[in-house]
């Protein structure tokens, strides 16, 4: 960007600056990073239910607050598991019911694109294929 002129001899060197949020990278606990690294949706849901991940949500809080949060997290753990299960079920339900419906509904659009804009169609397919693996 801009470079301030080089420090003059005899003046103190510029103090070191810290790192911004982007430079530090994602700020998550170890357990959550593991869950996010999982490629399979099923395993991701399994990880989301692990007590270690739930427990780690209290990381980074000051003492006393942290212990209180951990206590609360233990209390809500059954509800957390229930919520993740419901979320998983709804995802499954979506892919079983709504997704095929949309797939059939948009068949003509896809067919039109495939016929009239083949390179654009291929690019879109490739884009979504890539998204799935990362």
């Amino acid at each position, binding site marked *: *960007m*801009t*470079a*301030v*002129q*080089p*420090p*003059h001899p*005899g*003046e*103190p060197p*510029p*103090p*070191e*600056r*810290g*790192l*911004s*949020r982007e*430079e*530090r990278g*994602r*700020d*998550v*606990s170890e357990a*959550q990073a593991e869950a996010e690294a999982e490629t399979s949706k099923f395993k991701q849901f399994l990880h*989301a239910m692990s007590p270690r*991940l739930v427990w*780690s*949500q*209290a*990381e*980074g*809080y*000051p003492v006393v*607050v942290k212990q209180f949060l951990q206590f*609360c997290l233990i209390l809500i753990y059954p509800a957390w598991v229930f919520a993740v299960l419901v979320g998983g079920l709804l995802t499954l339900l979506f892919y079983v019911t709504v997704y095929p419906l949309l797939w059939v509904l948009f068949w003509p659009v896809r067919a039109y694109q495939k016929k009239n804009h083949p390179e654009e169609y291929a690019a879109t397919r490739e884009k979504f294929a890539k998204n799935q693996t990362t």
Partner: protein
Amino acid sequence: MGLFNRSGGAKVVVSPTNVTPRQTVTANVTTDKAIDKVRSARLEWGYTNFYQYHWAGRADSVAAAGNDTIWTMDQVGTNYGGDRDTDDWVSVDGEDVPIATGEFTGASSTFRIPSWAPPSSPLIARWECRLTVDRGGRDVDARGEFAVVIGTADVEAYVDPIEVVAGAAETVIDITLGSPVYRAGDVITGQATLTPTIDLPDGDLAVSWQRDRESHPLTRTPGPGNQWDGRIVTLGKRIPLRAGVPVVLPFEIPLPADAPPTATAVHSSLSWFVQARLMYAGFTGHMLERVRSPIVVVNAP
């Protein structure tokens, strides 16, 4: 004797109050009456650095995902408002004041503003000379403020490549500026060149200034940073975009007279940009294009 004997306060006066980098300032410390029982006294030059931090917890944790949504803002147990404004003292230079008989009567100090000094602004830094007197009673703290302004000669700016912020770059947007450095209150002049790579629907182009404050504290978890956009200047609502035919549109963007200057400090920094956004007519799936080009804003001639 001495228990109810109040010690006088100290006053720090810095002159001149408006300085540019590489100039020298002088601080004069005066006291109403001599401060007694002094163990040590120190004069420090530096700045109060304003920034934003995340008070606690992992910023990107699953549990924090719902914190900043509008429907959880008044709920107990969320971290809403967890990003807080704060400031920290950054000491640049300092000296101990010699104390002879346990009494402090005054002192003076000179300081040469470093060439890398972040200019004063309510967003980044407030320059001060601080006096701290450690004594066998209530300590005495006093500070004198002064402002650092930067001019065109204090920054070295070169033309930077344009940053594509959003869009599929179906139109190559190039921003050419009259100068890389502008003074607060000036009018940014330049021209935007649109080069469509394919035949595209008519375009709607607007430009504006943008300033971006980043927080990067040394120890605390940084806040997300803030962006402000200036009022947009519309350059054209129906610009025909044909493959390979460049369209040149000159523009003028007024900068606010009180614009805080570009600065890089220890815990936060402020950068300025000229941004352009291009929308395409219709709903045919062409994404909005957004690019920005960095500029430097100064507040002295």
